[in-house]
């Protein structure tokens, strides 16, 4: 029983109510960091870390937090975990920290985190909040990677460009689609992805909304 409930929480947050293609949240960072897979992976790790930690913290404090200041408390908690993540990036992966620039700090304003804290963690126990935060973060990550991988391959011909993990997939003779690593490429990819996924879920009857 408990297992199927956990599974349902996970599946709802990960896919049925996916933050990006269903709720259209977190679009700013979705568009901005997906021109390189490595930036996307780090952003994803940051978001998963923050949704999990803020969900757990908000849930832990839910019975002692005065309702009238709960939003302020949630912002404080989210900001603290994001700053902590930023400090870690600066210390241990400075090049990625530099590449992501303002976007790490802007995780604080990502609607997904605040949305899950207010809609779920503030009224649920710690473990379900952890699962909800993890699934929302992973749902966001899945879509970002689905956008970033074709963008980097078509735009640069590589995966994990400028890192020790770099893989060159397309030959030098391939004319790079520069537009894919520019802002319009992100809009095209996101729109195509939303269209395909929502069309598919409607057809298979998964769309219950």
């Amino acid at each position, binding site marked *: 029983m408990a297992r199927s409930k956990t599974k349902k929480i996970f599946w709802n947050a990960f896919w049925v109510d996916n933050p990006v293609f269903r709720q259209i949240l977190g679009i700013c960072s979705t*568009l*901005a*960091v997906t*021109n390189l897979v490595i*930036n996307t992976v780090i952003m994803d790790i940051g978001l998963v870390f923050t949704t999990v930690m803020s969900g757990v913290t908000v849930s832990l*404090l839910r019975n*002692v*937090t*005065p309702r*009238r*200041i709960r939003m*302020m*408390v949630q912002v*404080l*908690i989210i900001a*603290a975990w994001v*700053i*902590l993540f930023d*400090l*870690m990036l*600066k*210390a*241990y992966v*400075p090049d990625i920290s*530099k*590449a*992501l*620039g*303002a*976007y790490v700090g802007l995780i604080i304003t990502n609607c997904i985190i605040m949305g899950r804290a207010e809609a779920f963690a503030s009224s649920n126990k710690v473990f379900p909040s952890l699962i909800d935060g993890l699934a929302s973060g992973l749902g966001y990550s899945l879509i970002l990677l689905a956008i970033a991988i074709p963008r980097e391959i078509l735009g640069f011909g590589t995966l994990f460009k*400028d*890192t*020790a993990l770099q893989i060159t997939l397309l030959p030098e003779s391939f004319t790079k689609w520069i537009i894919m*690593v*520019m*802002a319009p490429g*992100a809009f095209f990819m996101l729109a195509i992805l939303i269209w395909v996924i929502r069309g598919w879920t409607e057809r298979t009857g998964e769309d219950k909304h």
Partner: protein
Amino acid sequence: MSFTKSRAYSVLYMFALSALFAGLLSLVKVVTAEQVADNERTAASKNLVRVFELMEITPQTTGAQLADALTKSVRPLWIVDNGGPKLVDAEPDKTATVLYRLWLALDDAGRPRAFAFPIGGKGFWGPIFGLMAVAPDGLTIRNIVWTRHGETPGLGARIEEDQYRAKFKGKQAADPAVARFRVVPEGTMGDDPHAVDQITGATQTTVVGMGKFLNDNFAQWHRYLPLLLDYLRQQGLTAPQPSTAEAPDGQE
């Protein structure tokens, strides 16, 4: 009314939670401070190596390789306030007022290969800092690297991309005193030696910001060029062709 429903509780609660998180973050900052300082030193070395194009930097390049390349070819210089600007090649003590930083790159024969100086100004989201290398003629840009900025990834942050930075190479100041570089719509700079393409979608970064500070910084560098030429002569290094720069204030 119970205490937990009072305003005083809300205030105390917020204060306590803020103090708790502030303490946690301060602790992490102290613990990582040494690592961050080390990263900054490595980044500074990388920037100098990149601006002078001394070697190719890969993810495997070590700090020792960078230091070796810099020791062999680059001489750091300072312009200090000594009742007027004075160029020194030994690191000044902490009481000295440093007016400007310069780096001189020498080729294998010991001839000046390029000079580099810091540049900086206002971007869209905040200040942008970088280094510019110029040829020994003092007018032609050899290279440019950005060391710090907060521009939007995918938009203004594209100033860091190799293909955009390459557009600055070979560009010349039309007038050393005021530089007169122009930032023009993307794809229109052609062979104009004084024009650099903007980035479409990043007008605030590349036109409003960079267009101004490129000229301001170049003009500032040119005020100190005569001191550098004097230094080269004193050191017996082959001096580059002097340009039409004026001497800095108070200097012959």
